[in-house]
């Protein structure tokens, strides 16, 4: 029960992190995972079990587009690219997040 709650809570944030990591250009699932993990200084560990459903959900809602291509070591891999809608969504979510986190920060600091 607790686990489900956690997933629900994290879902919106995972989408946001994925979209953010795709802002620099198309990446495959593995790279997305690595990037999130590395940039967050190993704080966030995304497991494939939630990463891929999230990617496919984003794809289904048209925020990212998937394409097969060659990875750097020349293997076939699926690359995800942010769409214009995805970009708008990212900006909007980011704003929301900034407001939200700013609010939380304020409360934690001053309350």
């Amino acid at each position, binding site marked *: 029960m607790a686990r489900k709650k956690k997933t629900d809570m994290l879902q919106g944030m995972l989408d946001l992190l994925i979209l953010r990591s795709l802002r620099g250009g198309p990446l*495959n*699932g*593995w790279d997305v995972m690595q990037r999130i993990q590395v940039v967050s200084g190993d704080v966030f560990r995304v*497991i*494939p*079990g939630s990463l*891929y459903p999230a990617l496919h959900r984003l*794809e*289904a*809602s*048209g925020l990212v587009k998937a394409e*097969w291509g060659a*990875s750097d070591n020349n*293997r*076939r*891999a*699926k690359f995800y690219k942010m769409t214009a809608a995805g970009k708008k969504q990212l900006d909007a979510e980011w704003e929301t997040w900034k407001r939200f986190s700013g609010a939380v920060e304020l409360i934690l600091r001053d309350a």
Partner: protein
Amino acid sequence: MLSRLKTALGALLRKTLVERELDEELRYHIERQTEQNIRSGMNPEEARREALKAFGGVGQAKERSRDARGVRWLEELWQDLRFGARMLLKRPGVTFVAALATALGICANTTIFSVVHSMIMRPFNFANQERLIAVWEGNTGDVNARGPVAPGNFADWREHNGACERLVAIEQRYFDLSDGDQPERFNGYRVTEGFFDMLGVKAAYGRAFLPEDSEPGHGRVVAISHKFWLRRFAGDPKVVGKALTLNGENFTVIGIMGPDFNYPYRGGEMWAPLVFDAKAGHDRERHFLRVIGLLKPGVGIKQARADLGEIARHAERQFPETNTGRGVYVYSLKEDAVRGTAVAAPILIGASIFVLLISCANVANLLLARAATRRQEIAVRLALGASRRRIIRQLLTESVLLGTAGGALGLLLSVWAMGTLSHGIPEDFAQFIPGYERFGMSWTVFTFTLLTSLSAGALFGLAPAWHAARTDFNDALKGDGKGGSNTGAGRRLRGALVVAEVALSLTLLIGAGLLVRSLAETLRADLGVRPENVLALQVALPPDGYREESQRIDFFTRLLRDIEAMPDVADAGAVNIVPFSMMGANTVGVQIVGQPTFPKGRGPIVHHRVATPGYFKAIGTALRKGRLFTDQDDARAAPVVLINEAVARRFFAGRDPVGERLKFGDGKRDTAEIIGVVTDVKNEDLEEQADPTVYAPFAQQPWRQMNLIIHARQDPASLASAVRGSVRALDRGVPVSYVKTLRRMIDERLSPKRMMTLVIGVFAAAALLLAAVGIYAVISYVVAQRTREFGIRLALGAQSGAVLKLVIGQGLKLTLIGVALGLAGAFMLTRAMSFFLFGVTATDPLTFISVSLLQAAVALLACYLPARRATKVDPLIALKAE
């Protein structure tokens, strides 16, 4: 909302696609994770286990559940096909070479199959053809006699036999067609009642014969061939019912036969009913009929043989004069029709299968080498829980796909090859080959090609697939992608394939070599005539005129005088049967005066030719002894004959035959003096010893039908119309036919041999090329695998010559084993070809040795190219490459 719905719908429709893509995506992920784990210091097994653990075991569960759903094999097949196609397209070079090799093998097989199918398996398409038989006469005790039948014996069989529903006699007959202008002569047949019915053949226009057409006193009718109809009447259906003047009598055209009806394959253009009058119907002396029959349902050939044999034995007792020693020979009609072509079938089929096997070995080798580079992919699949069976199936699907692609390409090649082949045999010759007109692409051939391609795909895929699936994935994941099939088993398998390729290719090459030598011998052999610039034309005096022999002599003497007067004519003569013309033969029994006599009908038989004095010079047959005919050897002079060397050898061993006398077996003529010996002229096959032949002067035996032999000073074809003019000037009613140069007749006789040599030669060349590619590929692979080793050797100071020797030695070993096996195979198999060989034995040492050297040289070249690369290895680069 709408786009979401669309995606969902699409996903639903492309469910398998989505699922498979997901699989691949996840597999990629696990692979990357495994690699990273290895980099961070885990051992490969641990790395993979950790990667799977991180994934939560999803993949394993997924693979397992997929195998469990047995009913979804179709879906899996589709996946495999798509995946296979993608893997093939990923390495277009390898795929193309493999498909091309397969195509060569498939093309060879498809083409030969279509030949065998149309000309041997189903040479004709008659109703009840399993029950049709051919019945011949022959001396009892012969193994495979096929002698023509006398009308009296045919009548016996027809009346008394209990095995056949029907028996029909066929007489070959010339028809002189005159429609106002100069008559033209056509070959045709007269057939007894029931001919068309028995074969189940209907006319394309009009009708076939009815029983009343064969009743005496009924109007004369004729059915004509499709070809004749097109040529003579431009395909006008209104010809049915039209009257034709044939041999001076009025015939009504009642039917036009279909384009594929050409029975009995002797170039016939028309069929008329054959009715015997009482006297002719009981003739047992003249044998000139071909008899075919329809067995009663349930009656076999053996039974028919026994039944008809009983009748023949009865006739022997009843008519000892004519029938002593005469037996009956029964064959299935198909066997009878294809006996000339069937001998070539096993060789052609065998050769084409060899080509296919070589190409399969080649492709198997390519796939083996490639399988090595795919070991990691396969190992990951195995690691993810795929069963080995599933992997084998995936790889087999891929190779069958490759086989099908090769087959499609081969089919195209083969359509082209069939076109070339069907133009390779002159039409005048082809009409003697049953089923030739139906040769080409058909659904049966297509089905054959499809099945062959699929089996070839499975065949060349099996070894690599099995080998790959045996992969130990621990090693593979750990390894650097090049260990694996360089292990003992893989190397031995590849070596064995190369040995097989070399052996098969050498066997084919030797077969081709023998055929080429044999053809060369045939071409070089002295035919006994001079084929250049000789034109032959048949001139037949009509049956209703020229009753007096002197009239015939007069006609031909004046005609030849006119022709000799033409400026372009060097020599001219006439003969009753032209050598190499396929006009058949006229044989006669002879008795040498002063030598022991033989019982009637058992004496020696010789070929009998009637010639004018100018004939020998015109055709280029030289005199060996004595003198040639002169104008003085006429009807009033004493009978004389010339003999060929074969007669001299047979009857006068070591003695001078000139001045001896001989008697013709029919006893109707006086004894004749042998005045000279002429050179042998080869028989119709251009190969065997010449037939013993006796020549009589035309002036003493004036035939109605003679063939002008004209030796021109230049191209003789242009003389034809002038000669026709001369004939017309003498008598408008005399037909001229069978106008052909001697060279052309000889070429026609040679064409099957040329075709056979060409086909086997092309097969052998393809085999040599494929085997060379096979060796090249294997040695290249070995060199690539050992680059580092060679680099070290060179760095340590090895001479490049030593490395060269090392690599070539490896190739040479395989080649020599292959050559040894190939020689042994050829030694056993070429005996089957003896029938086609002339002037060279089936184990001709020169051919065996020179062809082996060729094979070895090509193999060495194929080794040398990659070996040189081994010596050019830069040690630094080789070491860094690790």
